[in-house]
């Protein structure tokens, strides 16, 4: 089973990297999610796999009888899952705003945002590009 876990970790990382290297900004997001999952799995398998023995203290005992799954990585991953969700949503919001302001989803068109003393040409022109009808949501305008 360890080999299979390693295989999954490798596949998730490989796929994540491939997507992170794409020019399309949306694929970047998918890559981020895969990267998070791969890392969680890596930490999980790193402490050793114990099947079906969660770290719970039985009612009639005061400590967990060995063998038990390592609780520490689980605590780490639990918060990591929630936080990577938060970061993902933040990234979506950021990308959404960028897309609205610059009207491009090609990362190669966004290079000048990072360059010394240059402002992307589109930033002057397209402050708000209406891509969707604004009154589309259930809020009813």
């Amino acid at each position: 089973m360890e080999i299979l876990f390693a295989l999954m970790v490798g596949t998730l990382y490989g796929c994540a990297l491939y997507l992170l290297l794409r020019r399309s900004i949306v694929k970047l997001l998918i890559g981020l999610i895969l990267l998070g999952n791969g890392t969680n799995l890596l930490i999980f398998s790193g402490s050793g796999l114990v099947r079906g023995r969660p770290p719970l203290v039985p009612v009639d005992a005061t400590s967990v009888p060995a063998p038990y799954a390592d609780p520490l990585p689980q605590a780490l991953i639990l918060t990591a899952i929630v936080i990577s969700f938060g970061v993902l949503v933040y990234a979506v919001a950021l990308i959404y705003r960028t897309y609205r302001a610059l009207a491009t989803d090609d990362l190669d068109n966004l290079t000048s945002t990072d360059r010394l003393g240059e402002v992307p040409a589109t930033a002057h022109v397209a402050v708000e590009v209406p891509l969707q009808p604004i009154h589309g949501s259930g809020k009813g305008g």
Partner: protein
Amino acid sequence: MLIGLLVLSVLAVIAPLGVRLLRRRFGYLAALVSLVLLVWYASLLPSISRGDERREVLSWLPTLGSAVALRLDGLALLFALLITGIGTLVALYTVGYLEDHPRLARFWVSLLLFQTAMLGIVLADDMIVLFVFWELTSVASFFLIGFAEERARARMSAQQAFLVTAVGGLGLLVGLLLLAKQTGSFRLSEILAQGPLPAGEILVTSAFILVLLGAATKSAQVPFHFWLPNAMEAPTPVSAYLHSATMVKAGVYLLARLSPVFSAHPWWEPSLVALGGLTALAGALLTVPQRDLKRLLAYSTVSALGLLILLLGLGERGAKAFTLFVLAHALYKGAAFLVAGAIEHATGQRTLDTLGDLRRVTPLLASTVAIVVLAAAGLPPSAGFVAKETILGVTLQQRLPPVVLLTSLALIGQTAAAWLVLRPLFGRRPAHLHAHELHWTLLACPILLGTTALVGGIVAPAFAPLVSAVTASVLGTTLPMYELAFWHGVTVELGVSMLIIVTAAALAVAWPRLIRLGDRLALTEPLADRPRGLGRIGFERLYHTGVAGIVRLGTQQTRLLQNGYLRIYITTIVVTALLLVGATVLRTPYLWPSSLPSWSLVDVVDILLVLIILVSSLAAVRATERLAAIAALGALGFCLALLYARFGAPDLAITQVLVDTLTVVLLVFAFYRLPRYARLSSTRARFRDAVLAAAFGAMMAAFALATQAFRYSERISAYFAEQAYPLAHGRNVVNVILVDFRALDTLGEITVLALAALGVAALLARRSRRREGSA
């Protein structure tokens, strides 16, 4: 002592409020505070002169052995008197000089901050405290030189002064740390008690060189002297206070303070005499061919600072002359700057050739100038006269002809600078020259300071105990009792002194000819964009070349490394990881399956889950539609959750399922607002990325195998598992870790989550508000 620092810093903090309420009259308050401190320090004169010390310690970071330790001995008292005394007059002077300047609040904050820091330097007994105050004076000086922020030259000069002193400050920090390592203490008093350090140690030599570097930059020694004349961009009270009387003497103070530690070092005397002598000479040569009164005085200050360092290098005899000269110079040079400022304020001019006939234009100001010049030229009975006699006495006794020559030339230059200030009083009155009334403080302050300097020689004997106490601090010995006399009779020193005064006067008369030389060598102006004359080879040119080079290097490497292509950044990181981590992983013995401790059995459900995960992650990559990718991600997440559940992590399984659900919901919401999937990369780029991704994936798989085989210490987990119930009353160990054992981490994590939510709200809020407005 602590309370004094505290009062000053509190005054600095409330200065904006005070200036708003009192306008220019805030200066009276600042002067009053300085005066009270001056009186307090003066009241300590008798006891400190007897050789007593005062110490105060405020414990601070006790675990690091650091404390705000203060110590007041003779040397510290001398400087404290100067700082508070001249501080009082400068504060008064500012009332008339800056009037109700719109940036008055900023001026007072910086000046009071400086005063606090400068007092801190001389009182500090802890080297870290000393360093912090040292750097603070540089910061305050930066803001004060750049006070006229609308002038490009002021901004440039502020930056120059800051960079030069900050580089020296870095050297000083390392030097002090080395000193602490050698002596095992950060306390100056403890280090000084150890006596001279062994000269052979490389550590001691390095510490000496670095401390000397710090002192040389701060005290404007050659080759770092150029920042001081440029610092004359500052308002005149600042020039008088920071760049003549106090801050530039911080370097001199430091060398005097550490002289008992280093003076046995074979390099001490030659390096100090050479550095000080060179600076004294350079300053003297540069001071005469100047037009601008303040630049003139600045170069003469450079020369005086050099002389002070030279005197420190001369050992026991030098120490006495050092003390007298510090005191006299602070008085007369401070007064000279103040009077130059008054001339500028009254006439709007401060260059020698645009001024003339002031004795008729404004007689009151002219007589003030006369008093100050007589004091500065070192005529009897001034303090300068006594100091000069003592200096000459020391150098003549030393019987080193070069030192005598250097000293005399330096004194000629400095005296000539004093005489030159007299020139505006005579000669033809330039057209359009007129003077307006001056606020009383602009005259009272230079008169008071100048008169003190002028009659200082007569009262000199009264200061003999203080001079002895300072000398004792500098030499690190018990008190040698000194006699101080105003009149030594007709001696060689007197003859040389008079010769110097006359030669200097001759130079001042010949100034119109000298200034043409100065113009031809381009000495009279700050360095231009296109340097000419000596400007082409000077150290300041080197400074500019260096700064430009650093900026160019920074720009180039930023262009290279920060090229804007995300995928190149990622590729750089990944390739580095591949090389470093990959090499390490390949060398671990754990990698090979034979060393794996145990193989868990695999059942059909596992294989099914693993297969779905592998397929769906590949599907997420291959998807050509956004919805397909999201669906693949959903499947992947659920299978992961099931795997967690099967391997003893029910909490993870629950969380994963829920987050997976919410992610899918959110992506469905969000993705329709985002651009469609598009194929943007070329086939070649895709192939290249696929190869890199495959290599990275393979490395991570190997890494995962290696970590599985590597058994780390399980004590932490075991502790949690054993103590969860007895200590934390919880049976779910994972939850107990989250809310009890490592609750602080969890607090941090939910804070991150809250910040992410806040970020999302901030990013999207503008639109929703606008929509509500239009609805």
